[in-house]
């Protein structure tokens, strides 16, 4: 009953993650049914699947985000389980519930857990009651302007204004003073209302030069383990561009505390599947503060796989079929250092302008992991994310991994469109990056100071 072998997995996603999920499903001996929009009929994951099912027009809202259509498509394909990937419906509790109500298994936590951890305030409350430190902030959501001012004074400036229902960095504003707060709060409220249909705000202290460190957890609903942490501080517009595992410069005691706290929280919410607890890490004080939990597989999961040897996607599928965790905590060991860089169809010399072109030729370096949806002649549709691949390297230590990354970036060839590879080539040679002098606000000023030349749009070498 708990064996996924011979069963059908419906992949309710697209792009590189659909390809990655397909690979895990095949490793488990499963059949694959793949969702695709009108614009994605020729995508790699659709070609690799046993059955490809059209779920609607190009606009994601009318296809990948349409719960009724996706559930009906999965049911029609005879699926036993549905994997949501990341983005789209991955953290939609209504989708998880609808999949289960239709008699299929949802590869992820229960709808109730998704709903609870998806609400930032409820998630912070769950963290606090599990003894996980949170950033000094307001006790809950705040509606009145007077209450905002009083809370900000108690927390201490600078403070960040955040949307209670927010995500992806939207609706976040920084107030250095009380006057800033009075001016920015109405804007933040209006933006949150427009973006999420909920104008609720909360406040949090801003930690300067903070690093983004996150812990991978895996649970079976009863027991949870951690798979160590990732470092994701190199971000542009709050989107990660380069991720590592493990985080560098963490003393073993700090790592142990952070990972143990993560397992406590995962077990406190009876977590099922793969999840990530995001922390703000203050290198000056070695304090870490829980930010939020992502109740899905993450884009950057491969770096964790490279340093632990665990197939996270396969494990979450096994758990969805009712299997207990296949690993004990002591079975999970760190080996070496891994780095992933996100290759986007964007032109770094033109302000990262998206470029949905045709990949005329792809040549990945042998022996290097490149998770991608590209193939020779593939036309990248303009309707979705610009991520086209993730280049992942492993080395004996961080220095070795950076050296491997330099070689891999230099020998990865993507012809026909500009990509963010020149950014990674430059970062892999940057002395501050090499020395670990990075934080979440590092990359944007660095880009101002280090303008990148044109990459090979129109058929040239992307170097």
């Amino acid at each position, binding site marked *: 009953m708990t064996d996924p072998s011979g069963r059908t997995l419906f992949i309710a996603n697209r792009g590189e993650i659909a390809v990655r999920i397909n690979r895990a499903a095949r490793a488990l001996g499963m059949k694959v049914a793949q969702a695709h929009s009108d614009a994605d009929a020729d995508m790699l994951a659709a070609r690799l699947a046993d059955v490809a099912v059209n779920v609607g027009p190009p*606009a994601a*809202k*009318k296809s990948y985000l349409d719960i009724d259509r996706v559930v009906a498509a999965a049911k029609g394909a005879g699926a036993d389980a549905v994997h949501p990937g990341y983005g789209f419906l991955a953290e939609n509790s209504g989708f998880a519930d609808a999949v289960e109500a239709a008699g299929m298994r949802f590869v992820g936590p229960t709808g109730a857990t998704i709903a609870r951890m998806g609400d930032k305030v409820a998630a912070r409350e769950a963290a606090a009651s599990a003894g996980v430190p949170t950033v000094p902030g307001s006790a809950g959501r705040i509606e009145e302007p007077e209450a905002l001012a009083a809370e900000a004074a108690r927390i201490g400036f600078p403070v960040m204004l955040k949307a209670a229902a927010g995500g992806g960095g939207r609706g976040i504003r920084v107030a250095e003073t009380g006057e800033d707060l009075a001016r920015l709060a109405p804007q933040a409220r209006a933006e949150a209302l427009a973006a999420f249909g909920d104008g609720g705000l909360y406040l949090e202290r801003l930690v300067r030069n903070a690093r983004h460190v996150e812990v991978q957890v895996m649970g079976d609903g009863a027991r949870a383990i951690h798979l160590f942490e990732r470092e994701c501080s190199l971000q542009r517009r709050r989107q990660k561009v380069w991720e590592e595992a493990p985080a560098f410069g963490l003393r073993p005691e700090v790592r142990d505390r952070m990972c143990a706290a993560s397992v406590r929280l995962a077990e406190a919410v009876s977590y099922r599947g793969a999840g990530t607890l995001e922390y703000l890490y203050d290198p000056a004080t070695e304090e870490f503060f829980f930010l939020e939990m992502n109740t899905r597989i993450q884009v950057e999961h491969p770096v964790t796989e490279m340093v632990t040897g665990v197939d996270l996607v396969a494990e979450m599928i096994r758990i969805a079929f009712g299997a207990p965790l296949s690993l004990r905590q002591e079975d999970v060991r760190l080996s070496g250092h891994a780095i992933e860089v996100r290759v986007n169809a964007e032109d770094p010399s033109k302000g990262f302008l*998206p470029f*949905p072109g045709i990949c005329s030729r792809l040549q990945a370096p042998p022996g290097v992991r490149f998770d991608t949806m590209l193939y020779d002649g593939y036309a990248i549709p*303009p*309707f*979705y*994310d*610009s991520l086209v691949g993730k280049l992942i390297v492993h080395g004996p230590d961080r220095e070795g991994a950076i050296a491997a990354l330099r070689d891999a970036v230099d020998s990865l060839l993507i012809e026909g469109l500009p990509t963010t590879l020149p950014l990674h080539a430059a970062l892999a040679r940057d002395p501050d990056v090499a020395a670990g002098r990075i934080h979440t606000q590092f990359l944007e000023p660095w880009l101002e100071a280090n303008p990148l030349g044109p990459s090979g749009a129109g058929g040239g070498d992307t170097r």
Partner: protein
Amino acid sequence: MTKDLRSPLPGTFYRRPAPDAPPFVADGASVSAGDVIGLVEVMKTFHEVKAETGGANIRFALENEDPVMAGAVIATVD
């Protein structure tokens, strides 16, 4: 004589700045060169589409949220 207003970019076409806002340009209205007639969303980024030429009685060839290719006709004017 009619003139075509074309999309410079591929993506998803929007006639309104926000779902609950009125359209940038109403059907049948006149536009001047440089007027914003819609948005095209390309890989999650939004770009304004400006009329390259002015004219009267605008007629849209696309519905709100229709997919659009680069160079496709968005609307025609007289």
